[in-house]
């Protein structure tokens, strides 16, 4: 799976949890909680959705790495490659 595919999936899953937002339109380096008005539970639900969809284990300690679209893409790409 290419990085672009992963980025697309991250954006899709954010939009599933928060359909009021346009995650594809924000700076991929910005904190999604601020850029998209998400709360901690939204973030948790997005991470659970990514875990289910990509079958990647995401330990709680790594959650802070997934707070930007770019960070989540890099993290998942590394996990899928490893």
């Amino acid at each position: 799976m290419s990085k672009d595919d992963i980025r697309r999936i991250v954006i899709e899953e954010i939009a599933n949890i928060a359909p009021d937002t346009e995650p594809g339109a924000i700076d991929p380096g910005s904190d999604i909680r601020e850029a998209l008005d998400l709360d901690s539970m939204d973030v948790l639900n997005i991470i659970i959705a990514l875990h289910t969809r990509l079958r990647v284990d995401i330990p709680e300690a790594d959650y802070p790495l997934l707070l930007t679209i770019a960070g989540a893409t890099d993290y998942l790409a590394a996990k899928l490659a490893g």
Partner: protein
Amino acid sequence: MAWPTLHKQAQSGGDPNLASYDEACASFSWDNARAELDGLPGGGLNIAFEAVDRHVRRGHGDRLALRWLGKDGTVRDFSYRDLMLLSNRFANALRDLGVAKGERVFLLAGRIPELYVAALGTWKAGCVLSPLFSAFGPEPVRMRMALGDARVLVTTEALYRKKVLPWRDQMPQLRHVLLADAEGDALPVRTLSLDHALRQAGNDFAIVPTAAGDMALLHFTSGTTGRPKGAVHVHEAVVAHHVTGRLALDIRPDDRVWCTADPGWVTGTSYGIIAPLTNGATLLVDEQEFDAEHWYRVLQDQCVTVWYTAPTAIRLMMKLGADAVWKYDLRHLRFMASVGEPLNPEAVMWSQEAFGRPFHDNWWQTETGGIMIANFAAMDIRPGSMGRPVPGIEAAIVSRGAGDVTPLDTPMAVGELALRPGWPSMFRGYLNEDERYQKCFAGGWYLTGDLAMRDADGYFWFVGRADDMIKSAGHLIGPFEVESALMEHPAVAEAAVIGKPDAIMGEAVKAFVALKPGFSADEPLRKDILGHARKRLGAAVAPREIDFRANLPKTRSGKIMRRLLKARELGLPEGDLSTLESDEK
């Protein structure tokens, strides 16, 4: 299963403020509590004077009142003298704008320093403070400001554009909008720069002589039906904030107090602004959103001694595990408390393991203004219990009959939690809704709407809500407000909202909707409705989950039976169905 009682041993750092529960209750009087405060020099009582100015007059002006930790790593310190002068400036700015005593000043912002200055300055000017949660969507913001007759709003440019501008024209009575982060040409039309207003204003201000019974705070809370209610609190509430901060949270003058609640909710005002300051402690404010490791670092680096947080955050910390806590040096932490929804016994036991000390659950609500039932530092904890009434508070379990109220004295009998009216921070009304206010009282009791039990030793145990209100992540959410927003979606014919048990949030908001003819219940529409609700209400209030139904269960009078939907969702007995007229499909 039965959880072991956590016994308290003598603590390092001396006896807690409340060293013996029984003695404290026996010797307590509200008159003595009032005497702990100074009162305005010329007579009267004002929250801001008790919180700030009196400490300066006593020679403590140089003490650290507020330390603010910005998202970008900035640290800003405010001494008691700084807070006094800045709040004087804000009060002068209100006066310069022609804002009169008793008029309402609304706050809508994240945890920025200006918010604390504005709150204190509002009270000094004799105005009424109404803080709003900045994660609310435009509709809850508009509704509350309309009901509260907002005259002034303090907010930020981004929040203004997103949540106020769309309806500003509908609210002519909102005369002044002060933006904390915009200036000069960057200011949107019909807004003012807060910074500029503060710079223009003078340093000296004679506090408007407010009486103990003058309105000081308007906190909005949702109802099961109808519009949100504005709970009115008066300046005298500061007596309860102060004394419960001292007894239930064990706050002392040399403490660093971190209340993680947002000032948009009552906890963030009573214990995130007022109580630590009246007790002469240092208030710690962290602008960032929750992140467990970041929080541990703040606890360690800022030498936090008293920490007041909420079950949802505690359960998220539990998920991360105790190992993460052990990496930090938290030797300064002396007292940890939790509020918002019942703290499950697992979380109490986990905190003992992870922090070497337990979280102390306590119970209160917007209407009570301050902590009513608490686990105290010197009292054994029964995990899962909310504790015992704070000194000066009489609590009971009652059953409500037709027109009368009977106290239930049998241990562990389930009934409604009731309080004997008369404590200083009791709400004095719902703004312009006297009928709804009167309905909260019967037989000489204030009826809380919470179901609970009391054990033989006087510990109270939360059972659930007596109505359809939802307790989600520490927020009390009224189903009616959520349903109303859902009904505004063009495809929705009927909507019902329940609280679905959730391992982290306590309850999560779940909606059931029936569609109008011509719409099909598919995934794109589900997302569209969800997006609509989030846009209107904000993430904290909007449903997390939406299910479609062809028809919702209703009574003969057409009232949707949320209770039945909830029972079915949880696989519980459906109860009395005699009033069911049209069933769910």
